[in-house]
């Protein structure tokens, strides 16, 4: 009885939080939990199948890759880069995009037009070209990767936020707030932002998934995380050439990405409901 009522109260968001918490803990305590050095290669264990039994090169519950590196350890270490890059990119992109969207929608006029044309240009610019140019100019490192991913991300927030703000600013409660002495800044922060949290969260969760996949694409092109630093995207990309012979190379990182993105989407849905006062 108690168990069923407890199960009924559990929401998708709780599951998502739990999964994300586990992944985050694994990432933080990677040196303690990883069974092996993620960059130690041993060609004797090349493409070794997932097995729980001890072999000549040690245990590898998720198998070994083309250089004989332990996939489980690589995944645990890889989650650090993957999550950190993705979260940073989504937050940076979100802050920039929401700011531009709110300013554009609220100010209107010439400023709106200028900001939206910049957004259009950003949207029209081929991402891969941009990424390659940026990396060529500034070098491939962690920070630049975040900048590149945030650059591809902010336009989506800006567009959606601007649309929401455009219709919100005509609402009577904004006029009421002005009549009560609120400044433009106050209205944006205290009255408009809380009203657009739901779409922002939805965009952010979708973006997080997209950014993780995007990071893998960039890593595949060699402009993302630099080897030997593992990231899930890199592992997925590298495993693709072996997928017919050794499915575990791509399958486990892919599963990891899927699980994290799914968890984040669940959390997003749950947060949106939490922020909705009518629930």
């Amino acid at each position, binding site marked *: 009885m108690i168990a069923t009522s407890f199960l009924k109260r559990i929401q998708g968001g709780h599951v998502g939080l739990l999964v994300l918490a586990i992944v985050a803990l694994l990432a933080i305590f990677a040196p303690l939990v990883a069974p092996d050095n993620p960059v130690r290669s041993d060609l004797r264990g090349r493409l070794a199948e997932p097995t729980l039994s001890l072999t000549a090169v040690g245990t590898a519950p998720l198998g070994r890759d083309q250089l004989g590196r332990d996939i489980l350890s690589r995944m645990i270490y890889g989650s650090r880069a993957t999550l950190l890059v993705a979260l940073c990119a989504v937050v940076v992109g979100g802050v920039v995009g929401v700011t531009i969207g709110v300013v554009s929608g609220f100010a209107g006029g010439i400023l709106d037009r200028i900001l939206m044309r910049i957004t259009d240009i950003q949207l029209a610019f081929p991402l891969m070209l941009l990424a390659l140019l940026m990396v060529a100019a500034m070098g491939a490192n962690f920070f630049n990767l975040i900048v590149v991913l945030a650059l591809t991300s902010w336009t989506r927030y800006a567009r959606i936020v601007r649309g929401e703000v455009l219709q919100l600013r005509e*609402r*009577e*409660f904004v*006029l*009421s*707030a*002005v*009549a*009560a*002495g*609120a*400044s433009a800044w*106050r209205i944006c922060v*205290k*009255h408009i932002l*809380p*009203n657009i*949290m739901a779409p922002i969260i939805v965009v952010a969760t979708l973006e997080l998934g997209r950014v993780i996949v995007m990071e893998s694409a960039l890593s595949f092109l060699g402009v993302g995380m630099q080897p030997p630093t593992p990231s899930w995207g890199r592992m997925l990309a590298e495993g693709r050439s072996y997928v017919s012979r050794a499915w575990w190379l791509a399958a486990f990182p892919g599963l990891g990405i899927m699980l994290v993105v799914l968890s984040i989407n669940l959390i997003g849905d749950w947060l949106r409901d939490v*922020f909705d*006062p*009518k629930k």
Partner: protein
Amino acid sequence: MTDARTPKPLLQIRDLSVRFKTDRGHVHAVNGVSYDLMPEETLCIVGESGSGKSVHALSILRLLPEPPAEITSGSIRFDGQELLTASRQAMFDLRGNGIGMVFQNPMSSLNPVLTIGKQITEVLRRHMKMDGKAAHRRAVELLDRVRIPNAASRVHSYPHEFSGGQRQRIMIAIAIACNPRLLIADEATTALDVTTQAEIIQLVRELKWEQSMAVIWITHDLGVVAGIADTVQVMYAGGIVERGPVDAIFNDPRNAYTLGLLNSLPDVSDAHGARRSLRQIDGMPPDLHVLPAGDPFAPRNPYATQRCFSEPPSLRQAEGAEPGHLVAAWYDLRKLARREGAA
């Protein structure tokens, strides 16, 4: 009254004109409006849609979007301070503090995602510089004062948990939170049903006495006017056509438009029990893109004289009426109406 011998007006509007830029040119929404509002006076402004009553009220607090709106001339002095040239900061400080305003639609005037407590405390913290605790206490007091039941717990509720009438009370609570000297209510009871309307009017009457505020009440409902006004001001096509003490306007209207408005009211207390059919004012309000040469109401006015079509009448003391009863008309409605009654 503060000073009975030489009362100084709280609000002094002189020759206010507002126009809106549109694709077809300018719409002249308010044209040369001048009046004084005394401290603690309740002024009702009546007129149909597009008469400029709301626009002129919004321009007092400089709430019109400029552009497309443009205040082309005039002066608005509140408590001696000129508002049309005031700085943005001065206006921020005045809104919700010296002048409170309540709008027509209580269902959309509150922010749906903030608790009403937050929305009330926001003005208190902003203008009265209260800390969180003091503001919260005052918010509960205010809610209690506007007769929201269980104010202490309801302060944490969201707007959608209240009825329309309650939301309008909350709006009033926000508007009076900082003890303003003037409350402007723009069609504040129009969206409410009649019993709720009566409660809101009663509430505003009480608050007005408690806080010694002046009130500008904008409405198109003459029934509301009778219940609340000291002074009535009738507007048409962006100008004042008649203005005077409430009894004078109801019993001795001097402008044909005022008479038309009064005739369009149902009279349930007809002494003779005779059923009178409601009379409407024929025609449509004028297109304010081009102001007519004469009295804007002339084309709809059965009493219009030749002069009405050529020369705009100015607002002046009505002949043989109470002092302070002003009318803008070239005709003398008393004579004309009497002649009509005899015929």
